[in-house]
């Protein structure tokens, strides 16, 4: 029953995808099916690895899966050890594999240890504050993988266009390149151009396109539960903070005179701004709340999605502790819910990238307000 449901689901999913997203996109279709297949693995894969005697701490499991780490857990007791780059408090950088922490009994290597009481970060023995830590963690590696994926998609694509252009051939591409072009031009024309305005958009288009595809690829990779994906990057506040700061800087560095006038001396009755600068204060707070909302929205959406998926997975093991029958029936329910959630997350992955790019474009557009007054 499970298999039949799954294949029916896959077929319907495929139909929706093929009809609505892009007809005749065979490679992309296969990738989508492969992604969906991979998404369904954790239900079975994690079953053997979980301990059966200790009570299950759902919160710990969830945060463990979503937090950054110094090694990449593959399955069972297999990890990919990642390079640790830390600086001693007395000076001097250390570069070593995170596998070294397992070599000694108390997990210390050259004075460094991973403190499980304090968010599993590296600390130096005898010091309370964190050392400088530029380790290539799981999230950093995931970012690099995502970047590699982006470059592998866009650079060959762009080279193909350049080659065609040199030959004077203007025909449109087919297949995967067609999908890339469609998505790129959709964001470029309907989001960036539409929100910033005809006059200024060109300058910001490459940055905003990079932001969109970075978030989109990262969100999708985060949905793959095994190795080249699965790391929760966009659900980490550091990442969304940086992206939001990017938008903040673009808005406020390139904002024109009119923009600053609207903030510091807005077009409102005098009593709203003269003795007590009420409106300017509100506007200045607005400068910061806009990117803050961007940061929190992306973070919370991705964090929430991952939490629900992980909770549904944990539910299987919790109910198995109660009884085999309940566990079995809950497995079916959980499985169906997980499929639903993963589909929803596919949508959210696109939607959040789209919303982030669109709102950034809107804010940048608002920082060039002269054409609103020019009429």
């Amino acid at each position, binding site marked *: 029953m499970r298999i039949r449901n799954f294949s029916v689901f896959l077929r319907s999913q495929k139909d929706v995808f093929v009809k609505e997203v892009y007809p005749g996109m065979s490679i992309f279709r296969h990738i989508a099916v492969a992604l969906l297949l991979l998404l369904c693995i954790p239900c079975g894969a994690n079953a053997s690895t979980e301990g059966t005697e200790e009570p299950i701490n759902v919160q710990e499991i969830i945060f463990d899966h979503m937090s*950054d780490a110094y090694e990449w857990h593959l399955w069972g007791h297999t990890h990919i050890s990642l390079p640790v780059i830390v600086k001693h408090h007395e000076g001097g950088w250390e570069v070593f594999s995170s596998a070294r922490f397992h070599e000694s009994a108390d997990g210390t290597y050259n004075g460094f240890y991973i403190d499980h009481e304090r968010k599993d970060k590296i600390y130096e023995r005898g010091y309370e504050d964190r050392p400088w830590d530029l380790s290539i963690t799981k999230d*950093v590696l995931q970012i690099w993988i995502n*970047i590699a994926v*982006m470059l592998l998609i*866009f650079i060959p694509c762009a080279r193909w266009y350049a080659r065609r252009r040199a030959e004077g051939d203007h025909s449109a591409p087919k297949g995967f390149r067609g999908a890339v*072009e469609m998505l790129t*031009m959709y964001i470029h024309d309907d989001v960036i151009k539409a929100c910033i305005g005809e006059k200024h958009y060109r300058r910001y*288009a*490459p940055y905003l396109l990079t932001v969109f595809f970075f978030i989109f690829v990262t969100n999708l990779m985060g949905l793959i539960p095994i190795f080249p994906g699965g790391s929760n990057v966009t659900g980490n506040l550091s990442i969304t903070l940086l992206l939001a700061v990017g938008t903040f800087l673009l808005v406020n560095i390139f904002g024109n005179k009119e923009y600053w006038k609207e903030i510091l001396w807005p077009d409102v009755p005098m009593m709203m701004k003269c003795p007590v600068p009420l409106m300017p204060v509100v506007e200045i707070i607005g400068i910061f709340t806009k990117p803050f909302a961007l940061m929190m929205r992306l973070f919370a959406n991705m964090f929430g999605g991952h939490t629900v998926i992980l909770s549904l997975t944990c539910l299987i093991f919790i109910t198995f502790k109660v009884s085999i029958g309940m566990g079995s029936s809950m497995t079916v329910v959980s499985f169906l819910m997980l499929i639903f959630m993963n589909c929803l997350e596919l949508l959210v992955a696109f939607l959040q990238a789209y919303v982030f790019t669109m709102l950034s474009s809107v804010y940048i557009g608002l920082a060039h307000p002269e054409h609103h007054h020019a009429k």
Partner: protein
Amino acid sequence: MGNLPSILTPDFGLLFWMLVSFLVVFLLLAKFGFPAIIKAVEERKNFIDESLSKARQANEKLAGIQAESEKILREAREQQAQIIKEAMATRDGIIQDARDKAQLEGRNLLDEAKKQIEAEKEVALRDIRTQVADLSVQIAEKVIRQQLLHDDEQEKFIARMLEDVK
């Protein structure tokens, strides 16, 4: 801050690597990725617009040529009709002229002939008249001569004379 999970607390190392990685991918894609695609699409759009306007122009030109050729054809046909009409008129005129001329000529000839005939007749009449006069004189002479002999013979003679004259 201490109790918050690590995903909620910005981490310097992650921020640093994210910044570096993002800048790298941004610079690479902004230089080699997106502009090529966008330029190609925009060029294709311009090419299509241009081709469309060219096709429209060609269509218009073709329609113009067609209209012109039709006009020329119509004009030629009109000219042809005109020429034919003129030719017919000329032909009719020539025929009429010839007929008139022929009539005139004929009448002239007829008149001439009539005149000649009249003249001939006049001459002939005159001739006859003189001859008749001569004959009459001669007959009269002979009659007068015979009369003088005898009456019978005289009458016979006159009859014979008249017979002869006839």
